[in-house]
């Protein structure tokens, strides 16, 4: 039995079903207490599950996606993210980016743009809640953040997948036949489905943890870029 089959069976367990139900309730409650929510969608496995669950209750919700630019996110990888969002049923997709992405060395732009510009714009447009697909199981830092209810900006945050494990995420994807990014099929045979992450490629920010070493082997086509 392969791992996909195992995870499909995991989807049949009471434990998984309870977590999905809890998530549905969290989303339903957040939608009743807030006027204008949006979904933060990265294109990764967690936000894919979250988006699917939110769209079931609010199909016209605004889906916000940040494009890290051609130097950190190959264009066909980015294109696939957009296709996934549309396949899941997104009607109102907003793709934002920055002109500052001019090379791989241009780091920290998301922080600068997001906290400096994007949040102000979203507040002006009246958004009062964001659905974010973070999980306590991802790291101690995220666990603390969720438990203490620490939000990053003035906009309220809702974490519907907060109690999910990586098995829950993949079980939900496989059992619902959701599209997921092909990058996972490339990385998972080497790092495992539990450790495969969808993040920027050849990003100097992750050099210190050796991410570029693996990108160099699996995404060699994008190691060198010419303008």
């Amino acid at each position, binding site marked *: 039995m392969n791992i996909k089959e195992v995870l499909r069976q995991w989807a049949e367990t009471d434990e998984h079903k309870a977590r999905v139900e809890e998530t549905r309730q969290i989303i339903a409650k957040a939608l009743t207490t807030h006027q204008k929510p949006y979904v933060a969608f990265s294109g990764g496995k967690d936000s894919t599950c979250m988006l699917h669950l939110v769209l079931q209750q609010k199909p016209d919700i605004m889906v916000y996606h940040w494009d890290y630019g051609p130097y950190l996110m190959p264009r066909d990888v980015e294109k696939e993210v957009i296709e996934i969002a549309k396949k899941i049923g997104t009607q109102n997709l907003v793709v934002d980016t920055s002109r500052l992405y001019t090379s791989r060395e241009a780091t920290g732009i998301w922080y600068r743009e997001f906290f400096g510009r994007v949040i102000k714009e979203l507040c002006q447009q009246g958004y009062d809640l964001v659905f974010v697909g973070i999980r306590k199981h991802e790291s101690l830092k995220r666990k603390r953040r969720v438990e203490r209810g620490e939000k990053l900006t003035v906009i309220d945050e809702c974490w519907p997948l907060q109690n999910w494990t990586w098995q829950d995420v993949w079980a939900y994807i496989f059992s619902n036949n959701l599209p997921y990014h092909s990058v996972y099929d490339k990385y998972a045979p080497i790092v495992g489905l539990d450790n495969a992450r969808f993040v920027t490629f050849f990003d100097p920010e992750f050099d*210190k943890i*050796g991410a570029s070493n693996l990108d160099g082997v699996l995404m*060699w086509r994008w190691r060198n870029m010419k303008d």
Partner: protein
Amino acid sequence: MSGILEEVKYFANLAEKAPPIRWSRFRPFKVTFKMGSPVCVTTPWVSFDGLIAHLMMMDAFGQDFFITPKKLDLSPYLPHNQRLLPILKTGDIYHTSVSQFIPHSVKITQIYKRFEERWSENLKNKTIRLGSGHFRMYAMKQPYVPCKEVVYYVNGDMDLIKQLIEQYLVGLGNDIRIGFGMIRDVVFEETEEDYSLIVEGIAMRPIPVTMCEEYDDSAYLPYKAPYWSPRNVVLCVPPGARCKLKDEYQRSVKTMG
């Protein structure tokens, strides 16, 4: 700036004084490295001409090789037409295939960047923070290929290359200092055909598209040593892709191969 210029001058002088290299007959051959430990990689392949260039630098600079500038490509500053690689060249590329790992499967491990006591010699601070800052410890992802053999096809001076490998090569790939890429044995075998560039229409190494008449894939890749230098990156046919050399280069392959 003057520091860099002096460094360049110093190494150019060393290269000039290095004893000349005498080539003998060029012929196609196969090199098989029998591995004693997995090969640590940061690219899908390890280039043979890069490896030989590295060994020739060690030969020319002696112990000074270990103080060569790490981020400066010295090749444009070194004397030309002296100590050239003993490998056949077509256009601007050497007749060396990329590494073929047997068996080929990529695995991953973690290596740990830890503080080392030798770094503390010139430190003013008495305490060192390991959780953050310059000396922060990291678990780094490190891909490796647990292969039994690494095979290269080459066309060049087999005897000279054998001599260089036996004299200077400690291991293959990255992180040999921590035990990766240990070589048990190296086998050299002459081959009747030259398999180093293109075999049955398949590229055996990165080949600049400007040298090709037809190709079915391309990517920006370095095609000559030093492979880390962005200066050597051009649009290439990647190894494994189908391609056909332009007539002018075909002739040279036929003549020399």
